[in-house]
Protein backbone atom coordinates (compact mmCIF):
# COMPACT_ATOMS: atom_id res chain seq x y z
CA UNK A 1 0.00 0.00 0.00
CA UNK A 2 1.36 3.34 -0.94
CA UNK A 3 1.03 6.30 1.46
CA UNK A 4 -1.71 8.80 0.68
CA UNK A 5 -0.59 11.55 -1.71
CA UNK A 6 0.68 14.64 0.07
CA UNK A 7 -0.33 18.00 -1.27
CA UNK A 8 2.62 20.40 -1.13
CA UNK A 9 2.04 23.31 1.24
CA UNK A 10 2.45 25.85 -1.55
CA UNK A 11 -0.47 24.34 -3.45
CA UNK A 12 -2.75 24.34 -0.45
CA UNK A 13 -2.47 28.07 0.09
CA UNK A 14 -2.70 30.49 -2.76
CA UNK A 15 0.02 33.10 -2.70
CA UNK A 16 -1.76 36.39 -3.07
CA UNK A 17 0.16 39.45 -4.29
CA UNK A 18 0.15 40.72 -0.72
CA UNK A 19 1.85 37.57 0.51
CA UNK A 20 4.41 37.78 -2.27
CA UNK A 21 5.17 41.38 -1.38
CA UNK A 22 5.50 40.56 2.28
CA UNK A 23 7.86 37.73 1.52
CA UNK A 24 10.01 39.93 -0.70
CA UNK A 25 10.15 42.60 1.96
CA UNK A 26 11.07 40.03 4.53
CA UNK A 27 13.87 38.63 2.39
CA UNK A 28 15.23 42.10 1.68
CA UNK A 29 15.27 43.04 5.36
CA UNK A 30 16.96 39.80 6.30
CA UNK A 31 19.62 40.43 3.67
CA UNK A 32 20.31 43.96 4.92
CA UNK A 33 20.56 42.82 8.52
CA UNK A 34 22.76 39.90 7.54
CA UNK A 35 25.05 42.33 5.75
CA UNK A 36 25.21 44.45 8.91
CA UNK A 37 26.04 41.44 11.03
CA UNK A 38 28.74 40.40 8.61
CA UNK A 39 30.14 43.94 8.68
CA UNK A 40 30.44 43.62 12.44
CA UNK A 41 32.26 40.33 12.21
CA UNK A 42 34.57 41.27 9.37
CA UNK A 43 36.63 43.81 11.36
CA UNK A 44 37.69 41.15 13.83
CA UNK A 45 38.86 38.78 11.12
CA UNK A 46 40.44 41.56 9.05
CA UNK A 47 42.25 43.00 12.06
CA UNK A 48 43.62 39.68 13.23
CA UNK A 49 44.79 38.56 9.82
CA UNK A 50 46.34 41.94 9.04
CA UNK A 51 48.14 42.05 12.38
CA UNK A 52 49.54 38.58 11.93
CA UNK A 53 50.73 39.27 8.39
CA UNK A 54 52.50 42.47 9.45
CA UNK A 55 53.96 40.90 12.56
CA UNK A 56 55.16 37.70 10.92
CA UNK A 57 58.83 38.74 10.40
CA UNK A 58 59.33 39.44 14.10
CA UNK A 59 57.26 36.66 15.64
CA UNK A 60 59.41 33.96 17.20
CA UNK A 61 60.20 32.34 20.50
CA UNK A 62 63.21 34.64 20.71
CA UNK A 63 60.88 37.65 20.54
CA UNK A 64 59.00 36.44 23.61
CA UNK A 65 61.97 35.65 25.84
CA UNK A 66 64.47 38.27 24.72
CA UNK A 67 64.83 41.70 26.32
CA UNK A 68 64.44 44.94 24.35
CA UNK A 69 67.73 46.07 22.82
CA UNK A 70 69.18 49.26 21.32
CA UNK A 71 66.75 51.67 22.99
CA UNK A 72 63.81 49.32 22.42
CA UNK A 73 64.19 49.42 18.63
CA UNK A 74 65.17 45.75 18.51
CA UNK A 75 64.99 42.63 20.64
CA UNK A 76 62.02 41.10 22.43
CA UNK A 77 59.35 41.77 25.02
CA UNK A 78 60.24 39.54 27.99
CA UNK A 79 60.14 42.23 30.71
CA UNK A 80 56.75 43.45 29.47
CA UNK A 81 55.36 39.92 29.32
CA UNK A 82 56.42 39.13 32.90
CA UNK A 83 55.26 42.55 34.09
CA UNK A 84 51.79 41.94 32.72
CA UNK A 85 51.64 38.56 34.46
CA UNK A 86 52.64 40.23 37.75
CA UNK A 87 49.99 42.93 37.39
CA UNK A 88 47.22 40.52 36.43
CA UNK A 89 47.96 37.97 39.16
CA UNK A 90 48.26 40.52 41.96
CA UNK A 91 45.26 42.57 40.90
CA UNK A 92 43.00 39.52 40.63
CA UNK A 93 44.33 38.08 43.89
CA UNK A 94 42.91 41.25 45.46
CA UNK A 95 39.75 41.81 43.46
CA UNK A 96 38.49 38.23 43.02
CA UNK A 97 37.99 37.45 46.76
CA UNK A 98 36.47 40.84 47.50
CA UNK A 99 34.29 40.68 44.41
CA UNK A 100 33.04 37.15 45.10
CA UNK A 101 32.31 37.93 48.76
CA UNK A 102 30.52 41.14 47.78
CA UNK A 103 28.40 39.21 45.31
CA UNK A 104 27.60 36.63 47.98
CA UNK A 105 26.48 39.47 50.23
CA UNK A 106 24.30 41.02 47.54
CA UNK A 107 22.76 37.76 46.37
CA UNK A 108 22.48 35.75 49.61
CA UNK A 109 22.35 38.18 52.52
CA UNK A 110 21.12 41.58 51.38
CA UNK A 111 17.50 42.52 51.91
CA UNK A 112 15.69 44.73 49.47
CA UNK A 113 16.18 48.08 51.18
CA UNK A 114 17.80 51.45 50.53
CA UNK A 115 21.21 50.23 51.63
CA UNK A 116 21.25 47.42 49.10
CA UNK A 117 20.07 49.81 46.43
CA UNK A 118 22.94 52.12 47.36
CA UNK A 119 25.42 49.25 46.96
CA UNK A 120 23.94 48.36 43.58
CA UNK A 121 24.19 51.95 42.52
CA UNK A 122 27.82 52.06 43.65
CA UNK A 123 28.63 48.90 41.68
CA UNK A 124 27.07 50.36 38.53
CA UNK A 125 28.85 53.67 38.99
CA UNK A 126 32.15 51.94 39.65
CA UNK A 127 31.76 49.97 36.44
CA UNK A 128 31.23 53.19 34.52
CA UNK A 129 34.24 55.09 35.83
CA UNK A 130 36.57 55.82 32.88
CA UNK A 131 39.90 54.03 33.01
CA UNK A 132 41.85 57.29 33.09
CA UNK A 133 39.92 58.38 36.19
CA UNK A 134 40.96 55.10 37.81
CA UNK A 135 44.50 56.12 36.94
CA UNK A 136 44.04 59.49 38.66
CA UNK A 137 42.61 57.75 41.70
CA UNK A 138 45.48 55.26 41.79
CA UNK A 139 47.97 58.09 41.56
CA UNK A 140 46.32 60.13 44.31
CA UNK A 141 45.45 57.27 46.64
CA UNK A 142 48.04 54.52 46.24
CA UNK A 143 51.10 56.29 44.86
CA UNK A 144 50.95 59.42 47.04
CA UNK A 145 48.50 59.03 49.94
CA UNK A 146 49.41 55.42 50.76
CA UNK A 147 53.07 56.07 49.86
CA UNK A 148 53.44 52.97 47.70
CA UNK A 149 55.22 55.11 45.11
CA UNK A 150 55.19 54.21 41.45
CA UNK A 151 55.14 50.48 41.91
CA UNK A 152 53.64 47.17 40.85
CA UNK A 153 51.63 47.27 44.07
CA UNK A 154 50.00 50.62 43.26
CA UNK A 155 49.31 49.64 39.65
CA UNK A 156 47.84 46.27 40.63
CA UNK A 157 45.56 47.79 43.25
CA UNK A 158 44.33 50.33 40.70
CA UNK A 159 43.58 47.49 38.29
CA UNK A 160 41.91 45.54 41.09
CA UNK A 161 39.42 48.32 41.78
CA UNK A 162 38.73 48.61 38.06
CA UNK A 163 37.94 44.90 37.68
CA UNK A 164 35.98 44.64 40.94
CA UNK A 165 32.51 45.73 39.73
CA UNK A 166 32.56 43.35 36.78
CA UNK A 167 33.56 40.44 39.00
CA UNK A 168 30.73 41.35 41.38
CA UNK A 169 28.24 41.43 38.49
CA UNK A 170 29.32 38.16 36.88
CA UNK A 171 29.52 36.33 40.22
CA UNK A 172 26.07 37.54 41.14
CA UNK A 173 24.72 36.20 37.89
CA UNK A 174 26.32 32.82 38.60
CA UNK A 175 24.91 32.75 42.15
CA UNK A 176 21.45 33.79 40.99
CA UNK A 177 21.43 30.89 38.53
CA UNK A 178 21.40 28.41 41.44
CA UNK A 179 17.71 27.55 41.97
CA UNK A 180 16.16 28.87 45.19
CA UNK A 181 14.80 25.38 45.89
CA UNK A 182 18.36 24.12 46.48
CA UNK A 183 18.86 26.67 49.23
CA UNK A 184 15.46 26.07 50.79
CA UNK A 185 16.07 22.33 50.92
CA UNK A 186 19.33 22.96 52.70
CA UNK A 187 17.84 25.44 55.19
CA UNK A 188 15.07 22.98 55.92
CA UNK A 189 17.49 20.37 57.22
CA UNK A 190 18.78 22.98 59.65
CA UNK A 191 21.82 24.40 57.92
CA UNK A 192 22.80 27.98 58.62
CA UNK A 193 23.07 30.55 55.90
CA UNK A 194 26.82 30.22 55.54
CA UNK A 195 26.69 26.41 55.63
CA UNK A 196 24.17 26.53 52.80
CA UNK A 197 26.36 28.86 50.80
CA UNK A 198 29.45 26.73 51.31
CA UNK A 199 27.84 23.33 50.76
CA UNK A 200 25.21 24.12 48.13
CA UNK A 201 25.47 27.52 46.49
CA UNK A 202 29.20 27.77 45.85
CA UNK A 203 29.75 24.23 44.51
CA UNK A 204 26.87 24.77 42.09
CA UNK A 205 28.09 28.13 40.86
CA UNK A 206 31.86 27.93 41.15
CA UNK A 207 32.29 27.32 37.43
CA UNK A 208 30.24 30.37 36.50
CA UNK A 209 32.19 32.44 39.01
CA UNK A 210 35.47 31.21 37.56
CA UNK A 211 34.37 32.10 34.03
CA UNK A 212 33.71 35.66 35.14
CA UNK A 213 37.07 35.92 36.86
CA UNK A 214 38.91 34.48 33.85
CA UNK A 215 37.30 37.12 31.64
CA UNK A 216 38.75 39.78 33.92
CA UNK A 217 42.22 38.31 33.43
CA UNK A 218 42.08 39.43 29.83
CA UNK A 219 40.66 42.82 30.76
CA UNK A 220 43.35 43.48 33.33
CA UNK A 221 46.04 42.38 30.89
CA UNK A 222 44.81 44.73 28.19
CA UNK A 223 44.28 47.92 30.18
CA UNK A 224 46.84 50.64 29.74
CA UNK A 225 45.50 53.88 31.16
CA UNK A 226 45.20 52.78 34.82
CA UNK A 227 48.82 51.60 34.98
CA UNK A 228 50.22 54.48 32.94
CA UNK A 229 50.82 56.74 35.94
CA UNK A 230 50.82 54.25 38.79
CA UNK A 231 53.61 51.80 38.10
CA UNK A 232 54.25 50.93 34.48
CA UNK A 233 57.36 52.38 32.89
CA UNK A 234 58.77 52.65 29.38
CA UNK A 235 61.81 50.57 30.13
CA UNK A 236 63.17 48.45 32.91
CA UNK A 237 66.38 46.46 32.67
CA UNK A 238 65.68 42.78 33.29
CA UNK A 239 67.66 39.59 32.76
CA UNK A 240 66.67 37.67 29.66
CA UNK A 241 64.23 34.90 30.62
CA UNK A 242 64.25 35.82 34.34
CA UNK A 243 61.00 34.53 35.82
CA UNK A 244 60.87 36.74 38.92
CA UNK A 245 62.59 39.98 37.99
CA UNK A 246 60.41 42.40 39.96
CA UNK A 247 59.66 43.14 43.57
CA UNK A 248 56.30 44.54 44.66
CA UNK A 249 57.78 47.99 45.11
CA UNK A 250 59.49 48.01 41.70
CA UNK A 251 58.14 49.66 38.64
CA UNK A 252 57.57 47.27 35.78
CA UNK A 253 57.03 47.10 32.07
CA UNK A 254 53.69 45.80 30.73
CA UNK A 255 52.63 44.52 27.33
CA UNK A 256 49.88 47.09 26.79
CA UNK A 257 52.13 49.95 27.87
CA UNK A 258 54.93 48.54 25.70
CA UNK A 259 52.67 48.55 22.64
CA UNK A 260 51.79 52.19 23.31
CA UNK A 261 55.45 53.06 23.80
CA UNK A 262 56.92 51.37 20.75
CA UNK A 263 54.14 52.58 18.48
CA UNK A 264 54.14 56.24 19.53
CA UNK A 265 57.10 57.21 21.70
CA UNK A 266 60.18 55.46 20.35
CA UNK A 267 61.65 56.58 17.02
CA UNK A 268 63.13 54.17 14.47
CA UNK A 269 61.65 50.98 15.85
CA UNK A 270 62.09 47.97 13.61
CA UNK A 271 58.79 47.98 11.76
CA UNK A 272 57.50 44.56 12.73
CA UNK A 273 58.08 45.02 16.48
CA UNK A 274 54.94 47.04 17.32
CA UNK A 275 52.88 44.67 15.20
CA UNK A 276 54.33 41.64 16.90
CA UNK A 277 53.72 43.19 20.33
CA UNK A 278 50.10 43.83 19.34
CA UNK A 279 49.75 40.22 18.16
CA UNK A 280 51.12 38.84 21.42
CA UNK A 281 48.82 41.05 23.50
CA UNK A 282 45.77 40.38 21.34
CA UNK A 283 46.58 36.66 21.12
CA UNK A 284 46.86 36.37 24.91
CA UNK A 285 43.64 38.28 25.50
CA UNK A 286 41.63 36.38 22.89
CA UNK A 287 43.02 33.02 24.04
CA UNK A 288 41.96 33.70 27.62
CA UNK A 289 38.54 34.82 26.44
CA UNK A 290 38.10 31.82 24.18
CA UNK A 291 39.01 29.57 27.11
CA UNK A 292 36.39 31.25 29.29
CA UNK A 293 33.75 30.96 26.57
CA UNK A 294 34.60 27.29 25.96
CA UNK A 295 34.32 26.63 29.69
CA UNK A 296 30.92 28.33 29.75
CA UNK A 297 29.56 26.41 26.78
CA UNK A 298 30.81 23.12 28.21
CA UNK A 299 29.20 23.85 31.56
CA UNK A 300 25.93 24.87 30.01
CA UNK A 301 25.72 21.56 28.19
CA UNK A 302 26.51 19.69 31.39
CA UNK A 303 23.97 21.50 33.53
CA UNK A 304 21.48 19.14 35.13
CA UNK A 305 18.71 21.40 36.32
Amino acid at each position, binding site marked *: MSPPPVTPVSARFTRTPLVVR*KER*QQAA*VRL*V*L*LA*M*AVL*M*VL*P*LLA*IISHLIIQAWPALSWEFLVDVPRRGMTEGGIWPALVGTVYLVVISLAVSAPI*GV*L*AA*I*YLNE*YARDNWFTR*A*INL*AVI*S*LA*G*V*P*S*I*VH*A*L*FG*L*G*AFVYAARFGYSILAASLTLA*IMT*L*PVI*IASTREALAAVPAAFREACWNVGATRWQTIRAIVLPNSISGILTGVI*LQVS*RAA*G*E*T*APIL*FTGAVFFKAVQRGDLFPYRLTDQCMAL*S*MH*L*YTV*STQVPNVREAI*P*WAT*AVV*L*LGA*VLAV*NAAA*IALRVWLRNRKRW
Partner: protein
Amino acid sequence: MASTSSTGAAVPPRPTRPRRAVWGERGIELLIYASGVSAIVFILAILFFIFREAAPVLFSDRFSLTQFLFSTEWYPTSVSNVRYGTLALSAGTLAVTVLAMILAVPFGVGGAVFLSQFCGPRLRETLKIIIELLAAIPSVVWGFIGLTVMSRLIVTYTGAPVGVNVLNGGIILALMSVPIIVSIGEDALKAVPDSYVEAALALGVTRWQLVFRVLLPAARHGLLAAVLLGVGRAIGETMAVLMATGHAVQIPHGILDSVRTLTANIAAELGEAPAGSEHYQVLFLTGVLLFAITMLVNLAADLIIRGARARK
Protein backbone atom coordinates in the same frame (compact mmCIF):
# COMPACT_ATOMS: atom_id res chain seq x y z
CA MET B 1 -3.09 18.47 66.62
CA ALA B 2 -3.82 16.56 69.77
CA SER B 3 -1.28 13.84 69.07
CA THR B 4 1.64 16.26 69.04
CA SER B 5 0.96 17.81 72.42
CA SER B 6 3.48 15.86 74.48
CA THR B 7 3.04 17.52 77.82
CA GLY B 8 5.50 16.36 80.41
CA ALA B 9 7.94 14.66 77.99
CA ALA B 10 11.54 15.72 78.47
CA VAL B 11 12.70 18.04 75.73
CA PRO B 12 16.04 16.74 74.38
CA PRO B 13 18.87 19.31 74.61
CA ARG B 14 19.26 21.35 71.47
CA PRO B 15 22.32 20.11 69.57
CA THR B 16 25.10 22.68 69.72
CA ARG B 17 27.88 23.30 67.29
CA PRO B 18 31.49 23.62 68.39
CA ARG B 19 32.26 27.16 69.43
CA ARG B 20 35.04 27.39 66.85
CA ALA B 21 32.59 26.71 64.00
CA VAL B 22 30.21 29.37 65.25
CA TRP B 23 32.95 31.99 65.56
CA GLY B 24 34.46 30.99 62.22
CA GLU B 25 31.10 31.49 60.60
CA ARG B 26 30.69 34.88 62.25
CA GLY B 27 34.13 35.90 61.02
CA ILE B 28 33.33 34.90 57.47
CA GLU B 29 29.99 36.66 57.53
CA LEU B 30 31.73 39.78 58.81
CA LEU B 31 34.11 39.55 55.84
CA ILE B 32 31.13 39.16 53.52
CA TYR B 33 29.45 42.27 54.96
CA ALA B 34 32.68 44.21 54.65
CA SER B 35 33.10 43.19 51.01
CA GLY B 36 29.49 44.01 50.33
CA VAL B 37 30.09 47.56 51.45
CA SER B 38 33.39 47.79 49.55
CA ALA B 39 31.80 49.06 46.35
CA ILE B 40 30.39 52.07 48.19
CA VAL B 41 33.71 52.64 49.95
CA PHE B 42 35.64 52.53 46.68
CA ILE B 43 33.35 54.82 44.71
CA LEU B 44 33.49 57.36 47.54
CA ALA B 45 37.25 56.92 47.79
CA ILE B 46 37.65 57.60 44.07
CA LEU B 47 35.59 60.75 44.37
CA PHE B 48 37.46 61.82 47.50
CA PHE B 49 40.97 61.27 46.18
CA ILE B 50 40.54 62.88 42.78
CA PHE B 51 38.66 65.76 44.36
CA ARG B 52 41.34 66.15 47.03
CA GLU B 53 44.02 66.63 44.40
CA ALA B 54 41.82 68.99 42.40
CA ALA B 55 40.49 71.07 45.31
CA PRO B 56 43.40 73.52 45.82
CA VAL B 57 43.07 74.92 42.32
CA LEU B 58 39.28 74.86 42.36
CA PHE B 59 39.16 77.11 45.41
CA SER B 60 42.08 79.37 44.52
CA ASP B 61 41.44 82.98 43.54
CA ARG B 62 43.28 82.83 40.25
CA PHE B 63 41.05 80.08 38.93
CA SER B 64 37.69 80.66 37.30
CA LEU B 65 35.30 77.79 36.81
CA THR B 66 33.57 79.57 33.94
CA GLN B 67 36.88 79.85 32.14
CA PHE B 68 37.64 76.19 32.86
CA LEU B 69 34.36 75.03 31.35
CA PHE B 70 33.75 77.54 28.55
CA SER B 71 37.08 78.82 27.29
CA THR B 72 38.79 77.19 24.34
CA GLU B 73 42.22 78.37 25.42
CA TRP B 74 44.29 75.53 26.83
CA TYR B 75 47.85 76.72 27.44
CA PRO B 76 48.84 74.80 30.57
CA THR B 77 52.61 75.18 30.19
CA SER B 78 52.78 78.70 28.80
CA VAL B 79 55.26 80.90 30.64
CA SER B 80 53.41 84.19 30.58
CA ASN B 81 49.85 83.36 29.63
CA VAL B 82 48.65 80.23 31.39
CA ARG B 83 45.07 79.31 30.44
CA TYR B 84 43.03 76.30 31.48
CA GLY B 85 39.96 76.23 29.23
CA THR B 86 38.59 72.80 28.42
CA LEU B 87 35.88 73.68 25.91
CA ALA B 88 37.98 72.53 22.96
CA LEU B 89 38.65 69.24 24.75
CA SER B 90 34.96 68.77 25.54
CA ALA B 91 34.17 69.57 21.91
CA GLY B 92 36.69 66.90 20.86
CA THR B 93 35.06 64.34 23.14
CA LEU B 94 31.61 65.35 21.89
CA ALA B 95 32.59 65.20 18.20
CA VAL B 96 34.21 61.77 18.46
CA THR B 97 31.39 60.36 20.59
CA VAL B 98 28.62 61.67 18.33
CA LEU B 99 30.30 60.33 15.19
CA ALA B 100 30.90 56.99 16.90
CA MET B 101 27.22 56.75 17.86
CA ILE B 102 26.03 57.72 14.37
CA LEU B 103 28.03 54.76 13.08
CA ALA B 104 27.46 52.34 15.95
CA VAL B 105 23.76 52.75 16.73
CA PRO B 106 22.35 51.49 13.39
CA PHE B 107 24.78 48.59 13.37
CA GLY B 108 24.27 47.83 17.03
CA VAL B 109 20.47 47.88 16.91
CA GLY B 110 20.44 46.13 13.52
CA GLY B 111 22.76 43.49 14.86
CA ALA B 112 20.60 43.00 17.94
CA VAL B 113 17.47 42.61 15.77
CA PHE B 114 19.25 40.19 13.46
CA LEU B 115 20.50 38.09 16.35
CA SER B 116 17.17 37.89 18.09
CA GLN B 117 14.84 37.52 15.08
CA PHE B 118 16.51 36.64 11.83
CA CYS B 119 18.99 33.89 12.45
CA GLY B 120 19.07 30.31 13.59
CA PRO B 121 20.42 29.24 16.97
CA ARG B 122 23.75 28.04 15.65
CA LEU B 123 24.53 31.23 13.72
CA ARG B 124 23.38 33.22 16.73
CA GLU B 125 25.76 31.45 19.07
CA THR B 126 28.65 31.92 16.65
CA LEU B 127 27.93 35.62 16.16
CA LYS B 128 27.56 36.20 19.89
CA ILE B 129 30.93 34.63 20.55
CA ILE B 130 32.56 36.76 17.85
CA ILE B 131 30.95 39.90 19.26
CA GLU B 132 32.18 38.97 22.71
CA LEU B 133 35.69 38.59 21.35
CA LEU B 134 35.35 41.94 19.58
CA ALA B 135 34.50 43.47 22.96
CA ALA B 136 37.59 41.91 24.51
CA ILE B 137 40.13 43.57 22.22
CA PRO B 138 42.15 45.91 24.44
CA SER B 139 41.77 49.61 23.80
CA VAL B 140 45.48 50.06 23.19
CA VAL B 141 45.27 47.54 20.34
CA TRP B 142 42.34 49.51 18.89
CA GLY B 143 44.43 52.64 19.19
CA PHE B 144 47.30 50.95 17.42
CA ILE B 145 44.97 49.86 14.62
CA GLY B 146 43.68 53.42 14.33
CA LEU B 147 47.20 54.79 14.27
CA THR B 148 48.44 52.41 11.59
CA VAL B 149 45.75 50.77 9.46
CA MET B 150 42.86 53.19 9.76
CA SER B 151 44.92 56.35 9.38
CA ARG B 152 46.51 55.03 6.18
CA LEU B 153 43.06 54.13 4.79
CA ILE B 154 41.73 57.58 5.65
CA VAL B 155 44.64 59.38 4.01
CA THR B 156 44.25 57.21 0.89
CA TYR B 157 40.50 57.56 0.49
CA THR B 158 39.75 61.09 1.71
CA GLY B 159 42.97 62.86 0.83
CA ALA B 160 43.19 64.31 4.32
CA PRO B 161 46.70 65.50 5.25
CA VAL B 162 46.74 63.47 8.47
CA GLY B 163 44.93 60.23 9.13
CA VAL B 164 44.55 60.63 12.89
CA ASN B 165 41.41 62.72 13.31
CA VAL B 166 37.74 62.74 14.35
CA LEU B 167 36.80 60.25 11.63
CA ASN B 168 39.47 57.79 12.72
CA GLY B 169 38.59 58.05 16.40
CA GLY B 170 34.88 57.82 15.59
CA ILE B 171 35.26 54.62 13.59
CA ILE B 172 37.46 53.03 16.24
CA LEU B 173 35.09 54.01 19.05
CA ALA B 174 32.13 52.76 16.99
CA LEU B 175 33.79 49.37 16.62
CA MET B 176 34.41 49.36 20.37
CA SER B 177 30.85 50.34 21.33
CA VAL B 178 28.95 48.09 18.91
CA PRO B 179 29.42 44.94 21.02
CA ILE B 180 27.90 46.62 24.09
CA ILE B 181 24.94 47.95 22.12
CA VAL B 182 24.34 44.57 20.48
CA SER B 183 24.45 42.51 23.65
CA ILE B 184 22.38 44.86 25.82
CA GLY B 185 20.02 45.59 22.91
CA GLU B 186 19.48 41.88 22.38
CA ASP B 187 18.61 41.49 26.06
CA ALA B 188 16.09 44.32 25.69
CA LEU B 189 14.47 42.65 22.68
CA LYS B 190 14.39 39.33 24.51
CA ALA B 191 12.61 40.98 27.43
CA VAL B 192 9.58 41.88 25.29
CA PRO B 193 6.73 39.66 26.58
CA ASP B 194 5.99 36.62 24.42
CA SER B 195 2.29 37.52 24.39
CA TYR B 196 3.06 40.66 22.33
CA VAL B 197 4.92 38.57 19.77
CA GLU B 198 2.28 35.87 19.69
CA ALA B 199 -0.54 38.38 19.25
CA ALA B 200 1.29 39.97 16.33
CA LEU B 201 2.11 36.63 14.71
CA ALA B 202 -1.52 35.55 15.05
CA LEU B 203 -2.48 38.56 12.97
CA GLY B 204 -0.25 37.31 10.18
CA VAL B 205 2.56 39.87 10.32
CA THR B 206 5.92 39.28 8.73
CA ARG B 207 9.06 39.23 10.83
CA TRP B 208 9.92 42.70 9.67
CA GLN B 209 6.52 44.08 10.64
CA LEU B 210 6.87 42.31 13.95
CA VAL B 211 10.23 43.98 14.57
CA PHE B 212 9.26 47.43 13.38
CA ARG B 213 5.76 47.69 14.83
CA VAL B 214 5.97 45.55 17.95
CA LEU B 215 9.47 44.75 19.17
CA LEU B 216 11.25 48.06 18.64
CA PRO B 217 8.49 50.17 20.24
CA ALA B 218 8.15 47.73 23.14
CA ALA B 219 11.89 47.55 23.72
CA ARG B 220 12.67 51.20 23.12
CA HIS B 221 13.69 51.92 26.69
CA GLY B 222 16.06 49.01 26.83
CA LEU B 223 17.54 49.99 23.48
CA LEU B 224 17.99 53.57 24.65
CA ALA B 225 19.81 52.27 27.71
CA ALA B 226 22.04 50.15 25.48
CA VAL B 227 22.92 53.22 23.44
CA LEU B 228 23.62 55.23 26.60
CA LEU B 229 25.98 52.56 27.88
CA GLY B 230 27.74 52.72 24.52
CA VAL B 231 27.98 56.50 24.92
CA GLY B 232 29.42 56.05 28.40
CA ARG B 233 32.07 53.75 27.05
CA ALA B 234 32.91 56.11 24.19
CA ILE B 235 33.27 59.14 26.48
CA GLY B 236 35.44 57.30 28.97
CA GLU B 237 37.68 55.59 26.44
CA THR B 238 41.26 56.76 26.71
CA MET B 239 44.02 54.89 24.92
CA ALA B 240 42.20 54.39 21.62
CA VAL B 241 41.35 58.07 21.22
CA LEU B 242 44.75 59.12 22.52
CA MET B 243 46.39 57.27 19.65
CA ALA B 244 43.76 57.71 16.92
CA THR B 245 42.52 61.31 17.09
CA GLY B 246 45.70 63.33 16.75
CA HIS B 247 46.83 65.89 19.28
CA ALA B 248 45.28 69.17 18.26
CA VAL B 249 43.49 71.09 21.03
CA GLN B 250 40.89 72.78 18.85
CA ILE B 251 37.18 72.83 18.12
CA PRO B 252 36.81 70.59 15.07
CA HIS B 253 35.19 72.08 11.95
CA GLY B 254 34.87 68.81 10.08
CA ILE B 255 35.39 65.13 10.60
CA LEU B 256 38.87 65.33 9.06
CA ASP B 257 40.18 67.72 11.75
CA SER B 258 42.42 66.39 14.46
CA VAL B 259 41.17 66.85 18.01
CA ARG B 260 42.07 65.93 21.54
CA THR B 261 39.52 64.56 24.01
CA LEU B 262 39.22 65.11 27.76
CA THR B 263 40.51 61.62 28.50
CA ALA B 264 43.38 61.75 26.02
CA ASN B 265 44.43 65.11 27.42
CA ILE B 266 44.88 63.69 30.91
CA ALA B 267 46.82 60.71 29.58
CA ALA B 268 49.03 62.92 27.42
CA GLU B 269 49.86 65.59 29.98
CA LEU B 270 49.77 64.01 33.43
CA GLY B 271 53.24 62.57 32.91
CA GLU B 272 54.72 66.03 32.34
CA ALA B 273 52.84 67.87 35.07
CA PRO B 274 54.84 67.95 38.31
CA ALA B 275 52.85 66.52 41.21
CA GLY B 276 51.05 69.24 43.14
CA SER B 277 51.49 71.90 40.46
CA GLU B 278 48.55 73.90 39.22
CA HIS B 279 48.61 72.05 35.89
CA TYR B 280 48.47 68.73 37.75
CA GLN B 281 45.53 69.91 39.84
CA VAL B 282 43.65 71.10 36.77
CA LEU B 283 44.12 67.68 35.16
CA PHE B 284 42.55 66.12 38.27
CA LEU B 285 39.71 68.61 37.95
CA THR B 286 39.22 67.38 34.39
CA GLY B 287 39.02 63.92 35.93
CA VAL B 288 36.26 65.12 38.26
CA LEU B 289 34.42 66.51 35.23
CA LEU B 290 34.76 63.20 33.38
CA PHE B 291 33.66 61.28 36.45
CA ALA B 292 30.55 63.44 36.69
CA ILE B 293 29.67 63.10 32.99
CA THR B 294 30.08 59.32 32.79
CA MET B 295 28.30 58.87 36.12
CA LEU B 296 25.28 60.82 34.83
CA VAL B 297 25.17 58.85 31.57
CA ASN B 298 25.47 55.48 33.30
CA LEU B 299 22.94 56.31 35.98
CA ALA B 300 20.51 57.50 33.32
CA ALA B 301 20.96 54.18 31.51
CA ASP B 302 20.38 52.30 34.76
CA LEU B 303 17.25 54.29 35.60
CA ILE B 304 15.84 53.61 32.14
CA ILE B 305 16.55 49.87 32.39
CA ARG B 306 15.04 49.75 35.89
CA GLY B 307 12.03 51.79 34.79
CA ALA B 308 11.42 49.51 31.84
CA ARG B 309 11.61 46.49 34.12
CA ALA B 310 9.27 47.96 36.70
CA ARG B 311 6.62 48.68 34.10
CA LYS B 312 6.25 45.01 33.21
